[in-house]
C-alpha cells in the first residue's frame, strides 16, 4: 500500500452553506478560492468506501474510517483502514499546516511492524491506494498553483454553474488543464474534466450525491473515471458526523496503535 500525500477526504468534500454572491464580480481565481476556503466545521468523522473498477469490470473495495479536527494552525486527520483484510488496522496520520510553504507531517502505523513510522509527503501526483484519485484530486491543491479563468456560466444538472478552466503554473504537472463546473450558491465542484500533458481528456469527476449534514453541504458519492484506461473509482461517504467534539487524543500515536 502506498501512502504519501493523503488528503482530508471528508473536509474537502464538505461545502459552505449557501452564499449569495454576484457572479459578475468574481474572477476564476476568486471562484476557486471560494471552494477552497470554505468553512468546514471544527471536526468530522465518517466511513469512506472506495470501489475500484477496472476495464474488465472487476471490482476491488477499500474501506476507511477517518477523523479530522481543526486545531487552529494545524489540521490533524487520522485514518484507519478497515478492509481489505491484509491492511486492516493500518493507520495513517496527517498534520496539515495553515503556514504557507510548510509541508504536511505524516506517519503510518503498520500492525505487522507494530511501529509508527514517519514518512515523507513529497508526491502529490501519486494515486491514492490504487484509485483514480491523486492526492491533489482529493482537494489539497492550492488555488495559487494554477491560473484560473472563468469560461462561462451555464446550467448543469439543473444547477446554475460557473465553468472555470485551471492551467497549472508548473508546466511539468501531470495535467495540462482542468475544467470545473461549480454550483453558484453551494460552491460545489459538480463535475471536473482533467486533460493530460498532450491536451487529451484523461479523467472525469462527477458528483453523484450530496446532502446538507449539520448545516454543511457534504458530497456523499463521487465517481472518477479514467476515460483512457477505462478504470473508475466510486467514493461513498457514510456515517458522517460533523462538530461532535472529537477529543484531541483521538489524533495521537496512542490511537494509531490502538486501531479500530
Amino acid at each position, binding site marked *: 500500500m502506498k501512502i504519501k500525500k493523503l488528503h482530508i477526504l471528508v473536509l474537502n468534500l464538505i461545502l459552505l452553506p449557501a452564499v449569495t454572491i454576484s457572479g459578475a464580480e468574481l474572477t476564476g481565481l476568486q471562484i476557486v478560492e471560494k471552494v477552497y476556503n470554505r468553512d468546514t466545521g471544527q471536526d468530522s468523522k465518517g466511513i469512506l468506501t472506495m470501489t475500484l473498477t477496472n476495464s474488465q469490470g472487476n471490482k476491488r473495495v477499500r474501506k476507511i474510517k477517518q477523523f479530522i479536527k481543526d486545531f487552529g494552525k494545524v489540521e490533524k486527520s487520522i485514518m484507519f483502514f478497515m478492509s481489505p483484510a491484509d491492511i486492516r488496522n493500518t493507520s495513517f496520520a496527517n498534520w496539515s499546516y495553515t503556514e504557507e510553504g510548510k509541508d504536511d507531517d505524516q506517519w503510518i502505523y503498520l500492525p505487522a*511492524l507494530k511501529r509508527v513510522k514517519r514518512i515523507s509527503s513529497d508526491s502529490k501526483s501519486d494515486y491514492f491506494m490504487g484509485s483514480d484519485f491523486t492526492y491533489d484530486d482529493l482537494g489539497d491543491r492550492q488555488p495559487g498553483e494554477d491560473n484560473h479563468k472563468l469560461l462561462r456560466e451555464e446550467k448543469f444538472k439543473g444547477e446554475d454553474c460557473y465553468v472555470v478552466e485551471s492551467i497549472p503554473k508548473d508546466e511539468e504537472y501531470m495535467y495540462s488543464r482542468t475544467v470545473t463546473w461549480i454550483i453558484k450558491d453551494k460552491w460545489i465542484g459538480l463535475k471536473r474534466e482533467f486533460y493530460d500533458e498532450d491536451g487529451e481528456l484523461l479523467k472525469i469527476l462527477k458528483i453523484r450525491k450530496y446532502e446538507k449534514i449539520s448545516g454543511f453541504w457534504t458530497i456523499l458519492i463521487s465517481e472518477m473515471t479514467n476515460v483512457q484506461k477505462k478504470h473508475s473509482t466510486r467514493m461513498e461517504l457514510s456515517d458522517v458526523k460533523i462538530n461532535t467534539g472529537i477529543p484531541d487524543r483521538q489524533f495521537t500515536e496512542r490511537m494509531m496503535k490502538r486501531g479500530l
Partner: protein
Amino acid sequence: MRNRTFIIAGILVFLLAPFFGLNADSLNLTGYVRNYSGMLFTEGNDFAIIRNTFNLNLDHSKEKVAFKVNPYIYQYQNQDLEIGLRQAYIDIFFNFMDIRIGKQQIIWGKADGVFITDVISPKDLREFLLPEFDEIRMGVTAFKADYYIGDSAIEFVWVPVFTSTRLPDESSIWKPRFDLPFQPEFDYSRQKVSESFKNSEVFLKYSTVTSAVDLELMGGYMWDDDPAMHTVKNIDPATMQPGSITVIPEHHRLGLVGGSFSTTLGSYVIRGEGAYYFGKYFLSEDSLLEEGVVEKNYLHYLLGVDFTLLDIKMSVQFIQQLILDYDDPIVNDRVENMMTFLATKDFLRETLFLELFTYVGLNNGDALIRGKVTYKLADGFEVLLGTNIFTGDKGMFGQYNKNDMVYAKIKYSF
C-alpha cells in the same frame, strides 16, 4: 495432548462467546493461511523449508477494556504441529494511561531490520533473519503501562520472566558457524535464568511526536538475550595439549541507555538510533582468561535516510558497533560496520510490488541480498516469489553462503 487442549480451548471460546456478550459483530476475527516453500540452490535442490501456517487474530474491545489473542499453527512435513500463542493480552484504558498485561510483542526504535533499542521482545532466529518481523519477534509476558501527556508518552515495562533468543536446532542449516579447532561439547547447566523476581527485567521509555522530530529516550536493565559462550579448554594430561573444548552458554545481565529520532528534511526522512550497553560478554582468545570471555561496554548505533528516486522508494542505513576499552584478543572486531539498502516499487495500481533488501557486512565483505515480487491477485490474496542470496565466506551472512535459496509464499488473509 497439547494440541487437543488448544483445539478444545478454541471451540470453547466460540461456544461461550455469546454468554460473555461477545457476538459476531463485536468480536473481530482476522488472520491468514499461508504456504511457504523454499528450495536451496545446492546440487540436489534440497528444500530449505516447506511450511503451512494458520495465523489467527481474535480481538474484542469495549470502551475501557480490550483483549487480543494471536494463536498460530505451523505445520511442517513429517513433524508434529507447532502450536503457539504469539500474543495474548488484556488492555485497560484510562483517560491518560493504558495498561497492557499478558504476552505481547513490544517494539521500540526507528531502525528497519536491525535491533538496537528494540530489545524487549526476544528473537526467534530458527530461520535466521528471513521470516517476517512479526514472526521473528517473540511475545513476552509483561506488564506495560503508558502514561500520556499530549503527544508525549512515558512507557514502563516489567518482564517478570526472562526469555532468551530462540536458536536453530543442531541439524538446522541456520545453525551459526562455530570456528573452533575441535568439535566442542556443550554444557547447558548454567544457561537457565531462574524464574524469580530478582531476575526480572525492567524498561523505561520517554517518547514524543512533534512536527519537527519524533524522539525516543530509553533505558533498560535486562538479561542479554544471547548467551555468552564460555569456553573451557580441557587439557590432555598425557600431551599437556588441549584435548577437547567445552562450551558453557550463560546469560548475563545487561544494562543499556539509548534513544532514537526521526525527522524530515525536504523530501527525505532522516532516522537515527543508538544505545550504550553496559556489561556485554565477548569471546576472547586471551589465554589468561579462564573461560574465554571478557566483559566490555559497547556502543551500537544507526543512521538512515528514506527517500524517493525515479518513483522508487529507497532507504539506506549505516550501522556501527563499537567495543570500548578493546583488547586485541577479542574475537569480534573493535569496530563492526554494516549497511542496509531497500528499494521498493509498485505497479498495476498497487497490485504488483517489487522489493530489494540487502544487508552488507562491511568488515567481512559479506551480504544477504533479498529480492521479491508480490502480486495481489485479489484483495487479501497474494503470491510472492523471492530469493535469498548470501555472499562472502565469513561473517554474519557469509557463514550461510551455501544457503542461497528461492522461495514462494501464497497467502490468503481474512
